[in-house]
């Protein structure tokens, strides 16, 4: 099965619930970097309480990626700054994911 790289850019405040959602849906790992940015919900810089963004990456099978995207869409898109995109990737040791 294809392996996908799912990237989510969203509010720092969501870090813990997001991780829970990703792991509950069946992904086996994730990577987070701190970020800042601008989108429909305005400027989000990192130099203040809850102000910054995180950039979460998950490598997983395609169906899991879709399930995570659905779950996030359902729960958070209405009320939170969030952007989500998916790419196909070639992964070493693909069975790990």
């Amino acid at each position: 099965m294809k392996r996908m790289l799912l990237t989510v850019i969203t509010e720092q405040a969501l870090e813990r619930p997001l991780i829970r959602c990703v792991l509950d849906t069946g992904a086996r790992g994730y990577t987070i970097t701190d970020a800042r940015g601008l989108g429909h919900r305005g400027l989000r810089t990192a130099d203040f309480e809850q102000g910054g963004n995180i950039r979460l990456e998950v490598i997983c099978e395609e169906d899991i990626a879709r399930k995570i995207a659905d779950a996030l869409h359902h729960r958070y898109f209405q009320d939170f700054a969030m952007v989500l995109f998916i790419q196909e990737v070639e992964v070493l040791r693909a069975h790990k994911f």
Partner: protein
Amino acid sequence: MQQLDPVIFFFLLGLGAGLLRAEMRLPAAVYELLTVVLLLSIGIKGGVELAEADLLRIVPQLAIVVVMGLALGLIAFGILRLARGLPRADAAAIAAHYGSVSVGTYAVAVAFLDTRQVFYEGYAAAFVVILEVPAILLGIVLVRGLRPTHGWGSVLHEVFLGKGVVLLLGGLLIGLVAGADQIAPFEPFFFDAFKGILAIFLLDMGLVAASQAGTIRKHGVFLLLFALGFPMVGAAVGGFFAWMAGLSLGGALLLAVLGASASYIAAPAAMRLSVPEANPGLSLTASLAVTFPFNVIVGIPLYYGVLSILYPGGGGLS
């Protein structure tokens, strides 16, 4: 006019630099460190004083302060709903911010009293901890009723385990248990350096306030008026409860300032997750870019001036 405390100049410097888009930023890590040190310093100092105070007198004061937090939240909510018809969630979120308190503003008020050598109840830091909580809980209840979406467990976690409550309360307990003598070796860092650390913190707050300033216009005149007007109401409420609690003039100023100030540490974090449909920009802009500067520059000396005249035992302007 009373001269500004120089610590305010640092805020103005940051604000000016930010508004002029100067090439200067203090990294997030610095802000975190300063906040931790400030919260601990205030807590420890309060705890040391608490260790020497009469607990029988203080416990009822703490209860009065809880009521004050709820009253402030309700008043703010009423104003926002009636005068403007803001959506329920937004009104509740802003009310939670204004019913809660700003530790930075409190620190400036303490510096103000220290400079003037005015007596105040040293354990007032306990009021700060207490006031962090009730308005936030109220704000959540006003939107979610008595059954929050993710259950009370998660709400209480947000409210009681935020950085503000944990470090203030932790500091209080440490100061209380250790007492003045054992805290002495920590004084150079937590007390002597306090005003310098507060200065850097205010410089940073100035930069942050400037970066938020652009959004004020977007949110309209009403929010601006609220953010400028409510502090006066809050200060009056604080003064009243201080009188009920039998505080000194200095203590009354601190409670008035707490009433006038709006939270930007505990409330934003808790409301974001508990009432996500509220626009976080509204409350943060109001409390940070308008109310904080107003209190720090105009409010504190103003409340002190008025209390000096009106407060029983105030004894007129010195």
